[in-house]
């Protein structure tokens, strides 16, 4: 009774496995062909598109540049990647021509369809490309469904699309973002800020109730070395309800090379565990804090450790 059933199962398994193997082999073949195309045909076209765009931008022309073979399979994505690459590495670019090209060829609508077709990290990459394309406020609403994705990268790059499309409401978008922002995500927001896309001032961010906004504010202070924010940073360090924010504020004070001989800092350091204290000591040694500062903030048992750090990290001439 058992054997016929097992034999049937073997038959089913063999057929299914064979079908899977066929699909995988076809996939490997397809990937090989696509890679060959990417290295040859696509690389050549990308260079031509970039050249045409740069010539048009540098010449200040309003005439649409000619994009060879545009309309063939894969060329829309190639043009989107080229425009996104150009936008992400330039500052103060006049986007009128790029916007004209995007409108004329319907690249933003095509990218939205592409985002819909993709899944996982490919969808996140498509959203990252979309964030670099000059667009208007309607795009912010169009990507709103992706803010509820399970993939955090999809959620985050949907947020960057909203920020790029409608920067006037940046604070609201960041505040309503689902989940905490990671260090990488805050770093990406800083990149947007440096490109001049986000009109954010550190003051309102540091005063905001939302932890996310405060973290972005802290990152701005640290990134641009805003010493005027020292008092607010010390308040964060003193606030025991958000220890993670306090830690970040302490490191921001360190990178600003502010005086750490404050009661708030001493209390915060006393509450850190040994591992965190040593990491902070290493950071302080790298930032060039004097032995005297460390002596007053740390206990005597840790003295040999930080003395070695300071003497070795400065590595004075023999």
């Amino acid at each position: 009774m058992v054997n016929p059933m097992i034999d049937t199962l073997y038959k089913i398994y063999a057929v299914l496995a064979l079908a899977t193997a066929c699909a995988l082999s076809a996939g490997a073949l397809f990937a090989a062909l696509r890679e060959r195309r990417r290295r040859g045909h696509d690389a050549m076209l990308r260079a031509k598109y970039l050249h045409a765009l740069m010539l048009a931008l540098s010449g200040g022309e309003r005439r649409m540049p000619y994009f060879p073979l545009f309309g063939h399979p894969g060329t829309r994505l190639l043009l989107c990647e080229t425009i996104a690459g150009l936008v992400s590495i330039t500052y103060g670019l006049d986007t009128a021509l790029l916007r004209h090209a995007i409108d004329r060829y319907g690249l933003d609508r095509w990218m939205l369809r592409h985002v819909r077709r993709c899944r996982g990290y490919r969808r996140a990459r498509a959203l990252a490309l979309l964030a670099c394309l000059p667009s208007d406020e309607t795009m912010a609403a169009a990507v709103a469904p992706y803010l509820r994705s399970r993939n955090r990268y999809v959620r985050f790059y949907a947020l960057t699309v909203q920020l790029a499309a409608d920067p006037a409401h940046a604070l609201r978008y960041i505040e309503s973002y689902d989940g905490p922002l990671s260090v990488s995500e805050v770093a990406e927001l800083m990149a947007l800020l440096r490109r001049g896309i986000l009109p954010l001032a550190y003051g309102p961010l540091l005063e905001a109730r939302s932890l996310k906004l405060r973290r972005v504010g802290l990152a701005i202070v640290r990134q641009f070395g805003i010493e005027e924010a020292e008092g607010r940073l010390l308040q964060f360090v003193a606030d025991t309800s958000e220890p993670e924010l306090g830690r970040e504020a302490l490191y921001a004070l360190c990178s600003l090379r502010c005086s750490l001989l404050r009661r708030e800092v001493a209390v915060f350091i006393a509450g850190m565990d040994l591992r965190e204290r040593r990491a902070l000591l290493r950071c302080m040694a790298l930032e060039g804090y004097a032995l005297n500062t460390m002596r007053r903030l740390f206990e005597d048992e840790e003295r040999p450790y930080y003395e070695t750090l300071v003497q070795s990290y400065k590595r004075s001439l023999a």
Partner: protein
Amino acid sequence: MKALLLLLLCTVGAAACFVLRSVLRGRNKRRLLRDAHGIGSSLSEEIGISVLCSGIDAPERIDALLGSEYTRFETIVVLDAGGFPDEFARLTARYRMIRVEWHGSQEFPTSDIRTLWRSRRRNCRRLVLVDRPQRADGSASEGSVTDWNAAASVAAYDYLLPLDGRTALLPDAVMRIVAELGEHPAGAVDAVRSRIGMPVALIARDVVVEAGGFGKRMLRQVPRRRRLVLWEPLAGRADRAEAAKRARVAKNMLRTAVIAAFLATGGAVAAGYWTGAAVTAAAAVVAGAAAYGRQALAFDESAFDGKTLP
């Protein structure tokens, strides 16, 4: 018995598909993060990495390591000035290195560091050269471990990435590791390792300190929840000619294996021997998944083209 074999075959097929899915996801994530400009520039204030090099004395490889765009990053090269005086002199001259003071570390007690050198060139400030005598009696792996311990004792950052002479980091490996660490709260990750390509692992400094230095099976000491596993290559073989040769052989072998598995399955089906057909079909799945995964990783391998490896 036959039921058990069937169960085993199902497990093998599922495992092959799972690994392939992880590889494809890793490839897509890498593509996404390659264009993320913020990670390299702004994260550098948060996460520091010290690369500890043992058996690396070729200036081209050191140049490539120093070429990383990540700023909170240093390269510590350990070399025996007594055993390799020409190589040592070449490095000190090339990078205009000067001898600096050295105070013994509290965390890594090493007594056999002769001298410590740093570069006077502004663009090579991230290079530290450690002169340490090599013991003739120890094996090559033991030599690497003691070199890494010596390098760790002068390292400035919170994460250590040991490299030996056979292994070369992929050009964007440091950025990729940093991006992965940046996804998690500070101090939440103790180790990052890759399951593909040459074995390389980033380990938190405190873990190495607690273990009393580098040793065998270091990663086992890190709890699983504090370990990150990447299904993408972070490093390749330093010898590119050897690597290219091995890649060619592996490609041909995979192609042969896929064809042979298909033929064998066809033969077994024609003969009505379904157990054999299931076994060879499972082999075809494994070979097909390996071929697909390999092809997907060709994107990462292409990063090597025309570049000197770190």
